[in-house]
């Protein structure tokens, strides 16, 4: 998958976490996600359809999710409540929607977000399309944005 398809998600993530949520985030070098189980305990997922296809997954550890959604909502959550899961869905919704403005090659429709929790789960990514993992760290812990988008070029 070409970098030009990953960079819009990186840019949207940095804008959300750093500029909007005022978190000092550090992004690591993107890499191909070989083990589909190597995600954190809480993942928000959005499907991409239209003139291309793919999916985007935002994955957090439990406490990182709670703290980041608390920052988003300006409300202190103490556990992984339904509202925290709702907030994780909203975060991935913002990343996917914002990334669209820089994915100029094709028109994309984004699905409603879903959120998965658990110690071990497997996401069935679009077949034959590599998954690129962008690792992040911030004061609330580590998280990742994982992108799978079919190349059309």
């Amino acid at each position: 998958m070409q970098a030009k398809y990953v960079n819009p998600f990186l840019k949207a993530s940095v804008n959300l976490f750093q500029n909007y949520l005022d978190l000092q985030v550090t992004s690591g070098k993107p890499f191909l996600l070989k083990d589909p189980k190597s995600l954190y305990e809480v993942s928000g997922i959005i499907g991409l359809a239209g003139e291309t296809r793919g999916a985007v997954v935002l994955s957090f550890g439990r406490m990182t999710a709670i703290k980041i959604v608390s920052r988003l909502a300006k409300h202190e959550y103490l556990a992984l409540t339904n509202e925290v899961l709702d907030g994780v869905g909203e975060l991935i919704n913002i990343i996917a929607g914002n990334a669209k403005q820089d994915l100029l090659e094709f028109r994309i429709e984004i699905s409603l977000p879903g959120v998965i929790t658990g110690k071990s789960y497997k996401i069935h990514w679009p077949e034959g399309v590599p998954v690129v993992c962008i690792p992040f760290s911030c004061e609330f812990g580590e998280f990742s944005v994982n992108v799978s988008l079919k190349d059309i070029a």
Partner: protein
Amino acid sequence: MKILVVDDSAVMRRIHQNILKERGIDEGDILDAEDGQAALELASRNTIGLFLVDWNMPRLNGLDFVQRIRAISGYAKTPIIMITSEAARYNVVEAIQAGVTNYVVKPIKGDVLLEKTGKYLHA
């Protein structure tokens, strides 16, 4: 004046409601709905002066909601601000054509939301 916040995310509804309350809007004047269908039902039972509407929602999405509410004579010119993560230019064009008054891309800070809604608020 009643304001209707329409968003399937409970967190986003909380954020927008808090911003409006901080602006001095009475809590009783802020209604909320989790999708376009629920918003249509609320709008039929109340007189809404300002809509803040998300795009991607189950049952009836924001775009379809705007088209439906604009077809109701009493709401033909009521301000509708679409607040959505959908940032592509073609989305903005589509929303304007559907009848939104203003279009704001999430994430949106409180001062920006107040700037966009300010001229419609009479608190």
